[in-house]
């Protein structure tokens, strides 16, 4: 009965009520979005680096090494020599070592020179291996394996030919023209930066850079594909950008990290991907907390907006309350009517806000995928978030206690008729 009255009273003031609901919805959406994105982005990053025990690169900040070696964000400042790679791969506790060479791109997607072992060793999403949706690994020197997103966006199929550009980014001035690659394999989607990458063999990566020692091609020094194929056995690079290591036993990881960081022949940095991610989250944590506080304040503003809206209706309601009183309504019922209205408004705001947040999340997903190669899904809000949302629902009712108390007192003082 009260619910019907509350609904009637709300629809009567549909415009003002809608605005209030919308204000609350936006604030809720912001809160949910910040919280969900934080978790989703973290999960997205996390799922990109399972199975690699150590990442080795030239000395830099651990986070930076992780970002450029795994996520293609930023550039390497220096390389690791091939000798070091060979020594590390033979180290006692090292199960496997996969080198990567960065620096080229294709239509904005990065090209990674690596060994075929990469496809076997790399793990994502807590242990899944890479698989080929189509084709296979390289057979010819000028074969390329492409990620799922690359194939989809650029509409590549097996056998298509493409040219690589020197340097990363969308606008590359120089291309490795005359050394086209053939698509030999297309990887199944992973929801990680793998999908955004193209893979060539280290030898091919080296071959197309012969003559580029100063960063630009020396005229007449490049190899033709035929020359390169003929010399394939000698196409060994002098250096790589980074090395992914898998250990025979995880227990050895800190010892090996220590030894690599103290490496006598070359200055090196070894990072545990998980720990580097933790560092990254510590850096972003402050911003996230600020965003959360802002979102929280916006929610508060939304609820105060509702309080204002309820208070401004009190005078016009006083008459309505007197009518209900005359019909036998108890003051508590009349106060409850207000609380109920506030609850319905908050509830509508919550539902709308969560929907809005999910809408935005779904809308932002392609952008995140394009920018960072991480796939986010519209996950069900976790327990904490649900608790926070429930708390906001309660807060909405608590806020309405103020006008409810006012109404309660006034209806008692008014007697039979409203006194102006």
């Amino acid at each position, binding site marked *: *009965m009260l619910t019907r*009255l509350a609904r*009637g*009273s709300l*629809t*009567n003031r549909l415009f003002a009520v809608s605005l209030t609901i919308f204000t609350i919805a936006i604030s809720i959406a912001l809160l949910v979005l910040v919280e969900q994105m934080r978790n989703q982005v973290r999960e997205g990053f996390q799922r990109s680096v399972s199975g690699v025990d150590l990442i080795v690169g030239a000395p830099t900040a651990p986070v930076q090494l992780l970002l450029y070696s795994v996520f293609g964000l930023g550039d390497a400042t220096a390389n690791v020599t091939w000798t070091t790679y060979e020594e590390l791969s033979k180290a006692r506790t090292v199960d496997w070592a996969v080198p990567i060479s960065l620096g080229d791109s294709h239509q904005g997607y990065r090209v990674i020179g690596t060994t075929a072992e990469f496809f076997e060793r790399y793990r994502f999403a807590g242990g899944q291996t890479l698989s080929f949706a189509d084709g296979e690994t390289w057979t010819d020197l000028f074969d390329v394996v492409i990620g799922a997103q690359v194939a989809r966006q650029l509409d590549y199929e097996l056998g298509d030919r493409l040219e690589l550009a020197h340097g990363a980014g969308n606008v590359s001035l120089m291309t490795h023209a005359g050394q086209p690659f053939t698509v030999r394999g297309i990887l199944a989607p992973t929801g990680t930066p793998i999908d955004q990458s193209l893979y060539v063999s280290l030898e091919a990566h080296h071959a197309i850079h012969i003559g580029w020692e100063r960063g630009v091609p020396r005229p007449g020094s490049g190899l033709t594909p035929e020359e390169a194929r003929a010399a394939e056995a000698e196409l060994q690079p002098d250096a790589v950008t980074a090395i992914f290591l898998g250990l025979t036993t995880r227990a050895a990881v800190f010892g090996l990290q220590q030894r690599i960081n103290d490496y006598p022949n070359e200055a090196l940095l070894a990072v545990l991907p998980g720990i580097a991610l933790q560092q990254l989250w510590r850096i972003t944590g402050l911003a996230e907390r600020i965003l959360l506080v802002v979102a929280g304040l916006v929610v508060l503003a939304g609820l105060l907006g509702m309080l204002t809206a309820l208070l401004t209706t009190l005078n016009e309601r006083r*008459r*309505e309350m*007197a*009518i*209900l*009183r*005359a*019909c*036998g*309504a*108890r*003051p508590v*019922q009349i106060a409850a009517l207000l609380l109920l209205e506030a609850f319905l408004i908050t509830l509508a705001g919550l539902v709308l806000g969560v929907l809005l947040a999910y809408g935005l999340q779904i809308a932002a997903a392609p952008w995140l995928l394009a920018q960072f190669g991480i796939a986010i899904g519209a996950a069900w809000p976790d327990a904490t978030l649900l608790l926070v949302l429930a708390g906001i629902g309660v807060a909405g009712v608590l806020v309405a206690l103020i006008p409810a108390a006012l109404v309660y007192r006034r209806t008692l*003082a008014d*007697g*039979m*008729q*409203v006194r102006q």
Partner: protein
Amino acid sequence: MTDAASVAPLLELADLHYTWPGASVPVFGGLDLRVDPGEAVFLAGASGSGKSTLLALIGGLIAPDAGRIDFAGTRLDALKRAQRDRFRAEHLGVIFQQFNLLPWLDPVANVLLGCRFSKRRGKRAGDREAEAARLLAAMGIDEAGFARRADQLSVGQQQRVAAARALIGRPDLVLADEPTSALDRDRRDDFLDLLFGEVRQAGSALLFVSHDRELVDRFDRVIELSDLKTGSAPC
């Protein structure tokens, strides 16, 4: 009419005292009143003399400081506030001078409010929707009026809807606080005709407050509020 003394009174007030909180002068420093079942009483009094206050006391919206309010054997002055509210919902109908209706509800929903807060009153109304419609029709609200929001009705129509609400579920007593003072003469007479017709049919008593003495002919009894005051009330 039967001899007044032989019937048990519906309502009996004795030596009622009331002072509004914060006021220095009491509205009633001793007041007696008796209303019999089915009786239509006209209560006259100057503005500010306490007519509305008296209705609020009878309606149980406020409690007397001292004195007795006896309603068909129930001592209202002894009831707790929630009990008084339940009593009002069950036994009384109330019509104000104006602004009687929830503006966003249609007439039927407004009339139904009259039996919403008491189960017994709802039962007495029978098929509540049908009874609301019947009362509205009896009060001269036509089909077109049924579909409108209450605030789209004329003032005269609104007062008639209010009367229908007061009468639904056949209350023992209808309290009307200057219900005609917002109406012009023709509307006023129409309103009273319809009101009296339905009050008689429901068998309800009517305590009608007004300062418009042109109306007194229709009533069983006319009383001056000042005559009810037994104490040394200020004039």
